[in-house]
């Protein structure tokens, strides 16, 4: 066996967005040695792109808010297939995590009396999102990064993990490569936290960066952990659609929180036309009331633009399909209209939505203080992911923890905007805490050299294939297939076709060839990421086939209604002994009576 460079830590955190950083901070504060692996440079992870805010029931703007309302909102938004315990912990602990960020130097926008300001967002009953204009994610990742670098955490920038290493049942390390020189590295650890974020790159139109290839999900699955709720992929209703080069880039829900409205080509505000039964009592029935809500009138109900993302995305798709879309195949999102209501609207928009103003001005030649934006759905977030224990965030593999987007359970069938930024700090902290505890109670394991040789051989295979298939072409074909056949509107026959195609892509991926050498070679990196993309794409498709109903983010045109048979189950995905992917339905954990009562009270 070649002599690979080996590093040793008590806790290894893979992924350095909000969840990974928060886990690393917590673990190192517990006194263990921590290694932090990031696929990009530190501070560039996908958290940096989060815009609208972090949801926490601080009650600073509306004192009727508290954890119970937040819990009930989260469960309702998730169509009640969420893991209730995660939703409970999240709602209870989010305010402390926000205050902690402030204590570490974050500078949130303020209320008039100097407290943290909170804004309206889809599915949240009260203004709940602490924010910094529309660059909240940047503020959070920078705060965590700047706090973390003084904690003695060892950071491995631009490294990618290819496999987890086990000894018996327990995880004891990871094997990967550094981009700069292309060298393989071994990380020995007593506990590992996966915090690798999402899988948006499985789709053609996405708000996600090149990094979001579902690495953590694939690593955990291969190591024997279970994936849960994989069918639920969030298509954010408002991505940019024109010009083509910006397609998919996110337009924050904060635009609607500040009073932005959705209209079709006839100028009609179509969101009023279909309001789901379980939101009817909370939703305004005329534009005037909706506007008053956005202005903080506590007697008003929220406008239908602030319904949950799954619903808004489907209404937009309906308008487009029925021929009422905008010229480039989207609908209009209009914030400029508020000048009818406000004397200094243009200044207000620029202050509250500076990066949206900038983004449209620079990339689309649109002045959002004067003109409406053209928007359409974009793949944004995976509700599904690694199944973990709610309290400890440990998967069914001893020593393997997961937090943030790559873990799952809190969001159910649909995530509310703002809940991911709170998720990553609430459960990042928990994962770090319990990983440190596990590390203290366990020793380092023995590395299996045979396994490492195998992974290393597979990883360099694309160089031996030479001028084989272009990895970028395979990736593009895969993205188009998932977009067309397992997208917002699904049916069984298309998804069966998708599975067939995935099989072919998998064969093509084995033939992928790479030119050049191992030093910082994006072609090679793309070839290696195909494997994780294929795994998560198959998992999404199989879970979506298994859930023969429409719920939350999953819309099946062949089963367009909710079905009680699926109301109390989660789809679980695991790797069978023969290497095939298994799906089964698991009953939801029983919710305690006091929480059932909370949900009843909030109805």
């Amino acid at each position, binding site marked *: 066996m070649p002599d690979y460079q080996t590093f040793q830590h008590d806790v290894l955190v893979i992924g350095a967005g909000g969840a990974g950083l928060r886990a690393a901070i917590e673990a190192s504060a517990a006194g263990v040695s921590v290694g932090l692996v990031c696929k990009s440079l530190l501070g560039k992870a996908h958290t940096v792109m989060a815009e609208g805010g972090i949801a926490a029931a601080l009650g600073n703007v509306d004192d009727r808010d508290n954890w119970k309302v937040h819990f009930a909102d989260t469960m309702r938004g998730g169509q009640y297939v969420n893991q209730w315990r995660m939703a409970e912990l999240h709602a209870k602990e989010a305010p402390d995590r926000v205050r902690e960020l402030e204590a570490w130097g974050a500078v949130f926008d303020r209320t008039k009396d*100097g407290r943290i300001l909170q804004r309206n967002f889809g599915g949240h009953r009260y203004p709940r999102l602490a924010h910094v204009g529309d660059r909240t994610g940047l503020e959070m990742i920078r705060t965590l990064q700047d706090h973390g670098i*003084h904690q003695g955490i060892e950071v491995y920038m631009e490294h990618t993990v290819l496999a987890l290493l086990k000894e018996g049942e327990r995880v004891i390390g990871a094997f990967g490569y550094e981009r700069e020189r292309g060298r393989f590295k071994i990380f020995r650890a007593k506990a590992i936290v996966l915090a690798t974020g999402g899988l948006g790159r499985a789709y053609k139109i996405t708000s996600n960066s090149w990094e979001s290839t579902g690495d953590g999900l694939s690593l955990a699955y291969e190591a024997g952990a279970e994936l849960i709720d994989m069918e639920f992929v969030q298509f954010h209703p408002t991505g940019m659609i024109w010009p083509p080069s910006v397609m998919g880039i996110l337009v924050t829900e904060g635009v609607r929180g500040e009073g932005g409205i959705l209209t079709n080509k006839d100028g009609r505000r179509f969101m009023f036309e279909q309001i789901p039964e379980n939101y009817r009592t909370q939703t305004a029935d005329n534009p005037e009331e909706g506007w008053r809500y956005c202005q903080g009138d506590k007697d008003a109900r929220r406008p239908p633009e602030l319904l949950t993302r799954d619903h808004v995305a489907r209404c937009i798709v309906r308008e487009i399909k029925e021929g009422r879309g905008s010229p480039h195949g989207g609908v209009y999102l209009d914030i400029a209209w508020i000048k009818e209501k406000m004397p200094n609207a243009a200044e207000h928009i620029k202050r509250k939505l500076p990066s949206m103003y900038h983004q449209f001005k620079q*990339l689309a030649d649109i002045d959002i203080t004067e003109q409406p934006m053209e928007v359409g759905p974009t793949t944004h977030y995976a509700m599904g992911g690694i199944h973990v224990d709610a309290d400890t965030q440990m998967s069914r593999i001893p020593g393997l923890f997961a937090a943030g987007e790559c873990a799952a359970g809190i969001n159910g069938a649909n995530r509310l905007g703002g809940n991911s930024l709170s998720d990553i700090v609430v459960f990042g902290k928990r994962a770090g805490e319990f990983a440190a505890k596990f590390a203290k109670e366990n020793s380092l394991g023995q590395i299996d050299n045979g396994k490492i040789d195998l992974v290393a051989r597979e990883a360099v295979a694309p160089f031996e294939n030479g001028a084989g298939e272009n990895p*970028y072409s395979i990736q593009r074909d895969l993205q188009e297939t998932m977009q067309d056949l397992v997208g917002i509107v699904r049916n069984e026959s298309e998804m069966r076709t998708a599975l067939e195609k995935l099989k072919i892509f998998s064969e093509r991926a084995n033939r992928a060839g790479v030119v050049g050498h191992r030093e910082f070679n994006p072609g090679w990196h793309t070839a290696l990421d195909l494997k994780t993309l294929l795994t998560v794409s198959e998992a999404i498709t199989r879970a979506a086939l298994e859930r023969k109903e429409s719920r939350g983010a999953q819309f099946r045109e062949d089963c367009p209604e909710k079905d009680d048979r699926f109301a109390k189950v989660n789809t679980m995905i695991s790797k069978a002994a023969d290497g095939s992917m298994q799906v089964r339905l698991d009953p939801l954990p029983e919710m305690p009576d006091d929480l059932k009562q909370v949900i009843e009270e909030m109805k």
Partner: protein
Amino acid sequence: MPTATFRIWRGDAKSGAFEDYSTEVSQGMVVLDAVHDIQAKQANDLACRWNCKAGKCGSCSAEVNGMPKLMCMSRLNDLPLDKPVTIEPIKAFPLLKDLITDVSWNFEVKKKIKKFKPRPPDAADGTWRMAQEDIDRVQEFRKCIECFLCQDVCHVLRDHRKHDEFIGPRFLIYVAALEMHPLDTEDRLEELRKAHGIGYCNITKCCTKVCPENIQITDNGIIPLKERVVDDHYDPLGWIWKKLKKNR
């Protein structure tokens, strides 16, 4: 579709040269789109960093026709396409490969700056109160996406290679954000003068000009810091007072 030629630097620290690539150009394209297209179809191993493609992460810094820019925010229709568009790596840091440089120095510098140290919470609920107008300036500085374009154009780093003596505009702004944070109680002025080398900045404002976040680096950050350093160090009464305090 019309085509354009992109003259991209290929190579590493040892050797390299510009290579021309021709690719189709469509409406709204940015430089990073062209680089991606070339990477996918003509040069799979062309190294460049990127993440968000929306001017939020600061990864894709490069010099486009000689100007330091984020490739993701540089529209092709703002460039003359009748001649080749040159794309080369930033110059203040060692070249690794193609458009990628070794920016690790920046991460080491940041570690040496004293961290945020808030005063104890003083509101009844165990937190703090801050007025929006008191944090506007700090929020301006905290918009920084760490693209390091300001470091790239700073002649103290780019031409004089004073990396051991000067932290550069990015980190002067970082210190300014900490020093002007209403809750912070730390004092970083002595280091600013000595280890961080603020005196090297002769306010040519090149950094401000290239900042993609339009942070007024020089006027709002560096100059006020210089004033504080001067007040702190060269004020004779203050100097005597500090001596007395130290001896007590």
